[in-house]
């Protein structure tokens, strides 16, 4: 049972970690200094969540690995994040489409995990849920502004969302082995969150005058460690320093 709890905590931590890394790629590149700070703040919130979830994962595993060890010394196939978060930033519209989809999912998830029967998970979720509420809010705001903005911003949002529709099922995937933890109230049944997610996405897209979610072929399965090519490149940058100097401290 602790194996599957470990894996489930990696899913939670890796989602936040990988998206934090993606958002940090915007640092110094964003359209304005205010947006630059805004994206960095989202990334730092996610980094905090990753530290807590991966730290707990290391304790559950019981092999002496801490959050840093798990973040910087695993290879791509050992990561359990969903495929959506590892996708490239693209332009600002694509980044905001990804953020809106992920934060909307993560908000529903954390609102459920606040009531987890595992007190550590419940505590992390209680801290994170306020952060994520802001993420979901500001990303929806940008989606509406750009979708219902100029002809160019509208088209960029359409293109941005087009990239991501194939990764939605993967985000909600539940492993059969997680069923027991769901029944015990430790985890949330992600599949059960889907209708509310779909409804919220439809609502925001409509307000943004954007086309509804496209029923496209769905790519799997990040939760099982089968990733798109983008994750290895991301890890190459993220892990380069700790791997080159494994015992470095500062």
């Amino acid at each position, binding site marked *: 049972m602790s194996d599957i709890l470990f894996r489930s905590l990696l899913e939670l931590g890796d989602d936040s970690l990988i998206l934090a890394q993606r958002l940090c790629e915007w640092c110094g590149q964003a*359209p*304005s*200094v*205010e*947006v630059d*700070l*805004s994206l960095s*703040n989202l990334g730092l919130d996610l980094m905090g969540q990753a530290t807590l979830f991966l730290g707990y994962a290391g304790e559950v595993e019981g092999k002496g690995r801490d959050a840093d060890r798990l973040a910087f010394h695993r290879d791509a196939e050992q990561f359990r994040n969903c495929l959506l978060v590892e996708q490239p930033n693209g332009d600002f519209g694509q980044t905001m489409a990804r953020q809106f989809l992920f934060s909307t999912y993560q908000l529903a998830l954390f609102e459920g995990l606040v009531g987890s029967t595992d007190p550590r998970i419940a505590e992390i979720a209680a801290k994170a849920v306020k952060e994520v509420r802001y993420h979901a809010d*500001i990303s929806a*705001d940008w989606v509406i*502004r750009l979708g219902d903005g100029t002809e160019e911003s509208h088209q960029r949002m359409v293109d941005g969302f087009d990239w991501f529709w194939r990764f939605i099922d993967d985000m909600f995937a539940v492993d059969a082995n997680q069923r027991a933890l769901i029944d015990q109230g430790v985890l949330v049944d992600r599949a059960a969150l889907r209708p509310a997610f779909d409804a919220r996405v439809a609502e925001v897209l409509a307000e943004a005058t954007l086309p509804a979610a496209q029923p496209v072929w769905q790519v799997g399965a990040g939760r099982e460690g089968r990733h798109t090519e983008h994750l290895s490149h991301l890890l190459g940058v993220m892990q380069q320093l700790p791997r080159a100097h494994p015992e470095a401290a500062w």
Partner: protein
Amino acid sequence: MSKDWPLWEVFVRARGGLDHRHVGSVHAPDAEMALRHARDTYTRRMEGVSLWVVKSTDIAASDPDQSGELFEPAQSKIYRHPTFYELPDAVKHM
């Protein structure tokens, strides 16, 4: 992009009961986004519990060239300070 956005002056209330104080400015397309930018720029280290933003062009300011006639006459009028009264002993905490 930010060059096209108007400037907003940001005011932060540090704690309940204190006044909002001017802390700086942000660029944003409208008031809602100005509040978000102000939140991300000026309150990320627990600096505040409330935010105001005001479009910079909506603030009427005194002319620095007029500071002589506006402010210097006050310097020689110490009788405007209530420091010439003998306070009765019965009045405490003044």
